[in-house]
Structure formats: structure tokens, C-alpha cells
């Protein structure tokens, strides 16, 4: 992160002098207030709105804080939507996604970067080509494939594999990892080989320890992908026991009062917001450096 020492668009000196200083502080105040309003405001509205009764929410003009807080809305949301189950599912899928992407994508990137087997470049090319295919285009055939895997005739509906395996097929992660591995000097690996280390051992004890930042980035991407995805889990997890949070809330929205839906949304957001606030330094720096320099 840039510290106050680096020169940016406007010079430090200019910001500290008379008019510059005045403008700087005005702008800063406006932006801080504006951003608080724009980004925290709706969240405040969400938390308090879910406490209002159906009558109060339809009131004109809307009330700033609930006059008769209905904690019952949150209790109903928790119980009726079985949020505990939905949260568990989402975290379970996310954890699996991280695990399988780390294992298979790291192995593949390592092979493509260092072991370079025959046809490796062709495979890499075919993988990178999938970057050009938008996810929506593949939804229908992927779905048909997931319900009846070729050769094996296995149905993956309602099975976590339906989320984990397609996520492994992530060319961007393999690309990021491969580029990172490419930057690790060959000498290190050659030295390890001379010492009789197998490729697996080289990967485990030389490459991986050096690659922590990029592995962190891939993990964050994997979690975000599970967290943000909607249509795919909606299709492959049709039964209520296997739904993710986003899909579950949507599925219940049709037969649930609005305030309860919003209460469920608030509860659903709490764990990730906490995780984010706790680890925000790592997440932010990982995200930005990873996506740029990786």
C-alpha cells in the first residue's frame, strides 16, 4: 500500500498549502459522509427494516428507526429458512472448493510450468481457451452433463461434487499459478532433483512454501466464486437440504413475508462481514496484488 510518502496525482505539498488544504479537507469530509451514507446507509436500513412490522414498513414516509422492534422476524428467519443448514452448506462447499482447487490446480500448474510433459502446451492452450467462454453459455450442457456424467452415468444433483468439480476447471487460477511457478528459478528445482527429491516432494517442500501469497489469492477466489454464484447452485442443488445461502433465501422469498426475507439476508451477511473485517488486510492486499502481478 502506498504510504503518505509516495507522490500521487496531486503533490503532497499542494495539499498542505492554503487553498489546497481547504479543498482537500472539504472533499475528504464530503466523501467520507457520502460513502458512509451510500454504502452503510442501505445496510442500516436493512438491519432496522427487518425489525419493523409489516404495517410499519408500508408507512409513508418511512420511519428512521423501528418504533416497535419485532425481534420475532429474525427468529422466524432463522427457524423457517433453516439458516444454520444453509450457512453450513455454503461454508462446506466453499471449503471443498478451496481444497480441490488448491490440490488439482496447483498440481496442474506445476506440471505445466516445471515438468512440461508432452502436449502440455496443447493442454494449456485448451484450458486458456475456456476463458473466452462465458459461464452462461455452458449452463445448459453443463447441467445436462452433471445429471448424467458421461461413461460413469452418475448423477451429481444435490451432491457437493457438482459444485467442487466444475470449479476445478478454472483456467484463470491455473494461469495465475503457472505464471507464479514460472518465476521460481529453475536452479532451485534442479538442485532438489540432484538431491533425489521426487517431483511431488519438490512441489511440497520447495514450490508451495514459496507460493503462499498466490495460494491465498486462489483460495479467496474460490471462496468468492462459491459465495457469489447463484444460477449453477440453484440448478444443481434443487432440494432444500443442499441449497446455498443465496439460493435458499431466494427459494423461500416467494412464501415468506418480506421482513423475514430481509432478516434472513442480514443474518446471512453477518458471518462473512465479520470474517472480512477480521482479515480485511490480508484479503485486500491478496486480492489486489494477486490479480495484478500474479
Amino acid at each position, binding site marked *: 500500500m502506498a504510504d503518505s510518502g509516495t507522490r500521487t496525482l496531486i503533490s503532497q505539498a499542494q495539499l498542505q498549502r492554503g487553498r489546497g488544504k481547504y479543498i482537500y479537507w472539504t472533499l475528504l469530509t464530503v466523501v467520507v459522509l457520502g460513502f458512509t451514507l451510500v454504502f452503510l446507509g442501505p445496510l442500516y436500513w436493512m438491519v432496522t427494516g427487518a425489525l419493523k412490522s409489516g404495517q410499519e414498513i*408500508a408507512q409513508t414516509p418511512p420511519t428512521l428507526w423501528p418504533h416497535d422492534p419485532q425481534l420475532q422476524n429474525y427468529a422466524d428467519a432463522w427457524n*423457517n429458512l433453516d439458516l444454520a443448514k444453509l450457512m453450513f452448506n455454503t461454508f462446506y462447499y466453499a471449503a471443498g472448493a478451496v481444497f480441490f482447487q488448491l490440490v488439482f490446480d496447483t*498440481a496442474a500448474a506445476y506440471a505445466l510450468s516445471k515438468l512440461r510433459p508432452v502436449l502440455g502446451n496443447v493442454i494449456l492452450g485448451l484450458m486458456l481457451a475456456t476463458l473466452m467462454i462465458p459461464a452462461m453459455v455452458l449452463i445448459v450442457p453443463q447441467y445436462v452433463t452433471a445429471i448424467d456424467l458421461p461413461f460413469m452415468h452418475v448423477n451429481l444433483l444435490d451432491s457437493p461434487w457438482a459444485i467442487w468439480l466444475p470449479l476445478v476447471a478454472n483456467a484463470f487460477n491455473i494461469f495465475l499459478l503457472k505464471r507464479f511457478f514460472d518465476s521460481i528459478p529453475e536452479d532451485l528445482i534442479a538442485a532438489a532433483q540432484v538431491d533425489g527429491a521426487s517431483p511431488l*516432494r519438490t512441489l511440497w517442500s520447495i514450490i508451495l512454501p514459496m507460493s503462499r501469497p498466490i495460494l491465498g489469492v486462489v483460495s479467496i477466489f474460490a471462496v468468492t466464486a462459491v459465495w457469489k454464484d447463484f444460477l449453477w447452485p440453484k440448478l444443481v442443488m*434443487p432440494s432444500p437440504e443442499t441449497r446455498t445461502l443465496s439460493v435458499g433465501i431466494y427459494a423461500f*422469498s416467494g*412464501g415468506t*413475508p418480506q421482513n423475514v426475507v430481509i432478516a434472513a439476508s442480514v443474518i446471512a451477511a453477518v458471518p462473512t462481514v465479520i470474517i472480512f473485517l477480521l482479515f480485511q488486510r490480508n484479503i485486500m492486499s491478496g486480492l489486489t496484488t494477486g490479480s495484478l502481478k500474479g
Partner: protein
Amino acid sequence: MSVPQYRKAAALALAAGLGISLAACSTKSSDDSGTDASGKVTITVDCQPVGAQKELLANWNADVAEFEKANPDISIKSVSVGEQCNNPPDFTARLAGGTMTDVFYGYMTDLQQVLDSGQAMDITSAVSKDTIPTWDSVDPALKEVFTEEGKLYAIPVKNYSMGLVYNKALFKKAGLDAENPPKTWAEVRAAAKKIAGLGGGVAGFSEYSAGNTGGWHFTAEIYSQGGKVLSEDGKKAAFNDAAGKQVLQNLKDMRYGDNSMGTRQLLQWGDLLTNAGAGKVGMFIGAPDATQAIVSQFQGKYEDWAMGPMPGQDGAAKGTLGGGEGYFFKKGLSDAQVKAGLKWIAYQKLTPGKGQLDYVRAKPQNYPVGLPQPLLFTNGSEAQKQELDLRKANANVDTANFKIFEDNPVAIVGEPRNAQAIYAVLDSAMSGVLTNPNANIDSLLKTAEEKVNQLQAAGS
């Protein structure tokens, strides 16, 4: 460990890892005949109530236990598929994936889709008085709905028809006669105007226009005008006529002429019922069980709600939309499984005094007894009489609230073929009149007509 062994292990781990883990989930695919070594027949059945519906779920589980006790050679495995047992995308997903239960729930309009998926079993020869004791009393019209080319594919378990659901409390507040609901659309309009006049965001009349429910209600309303959605042969749209225009005109008059339908539109099922539960809706078109949803899911009160017959344009309605549910059988079941499934349905759905018709048990619960449904048995049949007597004796809602509806039966018309696709098209006509003050009814209907003609031409 030597170097190459490492490699071997790595290769095996990576290659086998995938294969094994994939094989692990293949245990789910069931190709067993459903009969275990001891000769016990197992069937899976869906539409078990969800956890939030506590009493319904307890009832269901009690039914399963009692049924299994009476039939020690049958084992029922219940599967819950959500509050709405047939949510179209999920239902499609299960059909396409073949992950439905052995005996699976569907709407009357689902027959074509189930047949298309190649997953339906012809159960004509298995159904008789022996498997379903009340079979001869079941309304033949309902059997017909699940029959294609003389073959029966499902057992009807619920049937409803639509009428005018209204909030008695709001009627009284607005100075209207709560015992005498509007019988024509003109009267509906007048009443809606009065109710909306109460203010506080109350809609006199409320209507759907999204998520395919708008088209569903357009269909009900055009039936009330004596109109049709599709031509006799089912190949062309038939709603772009005086009847269809009248439907939209009525809504437009109320929405923009009188401003009596509230500002919130683009409603779908839960939205309207949420508003109704909050006491913000005077009237809407619905089946008797809409009141059940308002109470059990949307925090409303039974005593507020009553029902009249479907309104007509001048005088009584010429028809009303009917629909219902049934249980299909998955292709490839053994004879024993089909028989077990029929027995279960007969017990849980079609026996007065048992299962869903166990009114003694339902009476103290927060679910209504006394609604004019499920209308499964032919008028005058033995089963119908039994069911009716039990229902009357155990009613926990004021049956008077539904008396006008029951005493003025309207001819029931079924849903059109390819219903969901047509409803999606008609949604846009409904949202047109409900959100655009300058909507041109003729052009809305014309566009919808073109789309439906195209759908039907492509679908056949």
C-alpha cells in the same frame, strides 16, 4: 520410500482421487427393484411438508408410521422438496435428472412435461378398487386430466377452483356488506374503490403480474368472461377477443381509473399474500387454500377472510379456473412398488378420516378445516358424503364464510396445454395494464397473441 514409489503414489492419488470420489456418489443412483431380502417393498415419496410447517410435518410422519404398521411389508421413505412442492425450475431439474422420487408430486398441468421427459409410468392397469378403495368415487373429470390416449399416469389428490377471496374486516370498515360479496366485475370495481378509500396503502382489489402468476390469473378471469386461452385444437391463441379485452379493461379501470389497486404491482404469489396477511388487500382472485397460506405463512387471521364465487361480467361468471395436484409414478418401478405407492396414496390422500382428510386431528391445529376443498369425490358418492360430514363436524373455520362460494358453483375449466409458457407471455400483458397508465390493451393482447401462436406452432 524410494523416488519412483513416490511418483507412483502421486499418480495414483491424483488419478484415482477423482475416480473414487465420483464413484462414491454413484451410490445414490438407485437401480434396485425396491424389494429387499426380507421381501419388504420400499418406495420414496416426495412433498413431505418442510420443517417450518411443524404440525403438517408431524401429521405426515404420523401417517407414515401408522401406514407402515398396517402394512408391515411396505416401507415409505419421505422426501421434502420445499414449501412449494412443484417449483417449476426445480421440478424440471428433477425430471431431467431423473432424481424424482418413486412416487412424485406434480400439478395437473405437468402431465405433458412429465410425458416428454420419458419418466412417467402407465398405471392404468394397476389402479382399481383393490388398490384404491375410494377410486370409483373419485371425480372422473380429475382422472381425465391425468389421462393421455386412454392411459392413466397419475392419481389426483387435490382439486380446487377459484373464486373471489375477500377481507371481511375491510369490507365492514368500508361500509360494505360483508355477507354479500360482489358478484360482477362492476360490483368488484365499486367495492374496490370504497375499500381503497380507507387509505393507509390498502388496495381494494389486488392482482398478480409476474413470475407466471399474472398469466395464470388472466386465464381465470377470461374464463369468467366465457372466453378461452387457446383454440379448441390447442394450436392458436384465442384470448385476443372481446373477453380478453374486457379482462384487461376491468383491471385498467380499477388500477388507473379509480386508483384502487395500490401502487405496488409486479406481484407474484407470495407478494400478494404478504400484503393480504398485513391487512392491505380487500379482494383478490384465489382458491380456498389461499386463506390457509395467508394464515399459516403470512401472519393473517381466518376470521377476516371469506369467499364468494368468481365474478362475471354481467351476472354470474361463465366459468372459473380449476386446477389440482396428483402423484405420478416413476418409470421402471416394480409391480410391487406401484401397488405400494397406490396403497399409500389411497391411505394418505383419498380415505375420509385419514391422512389429509383426518379432520379430527386437524381441528385443533393451525390449519383450516371446513374450506370447500379438496373436491376430490363425485357429487353424491359415498366417499364425498363421508368426507363432507366429517368436515362439517370438525370445522375450525366458520364455514359460513365459504357458503356463498359453495352455493354458487361455477363451471370449472382446466388450465391450457403448455400452461407455464403461455402464462409467462400473458404476464407481460398483465404488467402492461397494471403499471402503464397509457397502456394500449389492443396492442398488448395482439403481441401476446403472436407470441403464443409462435409457442404453440413450435411446441407441437
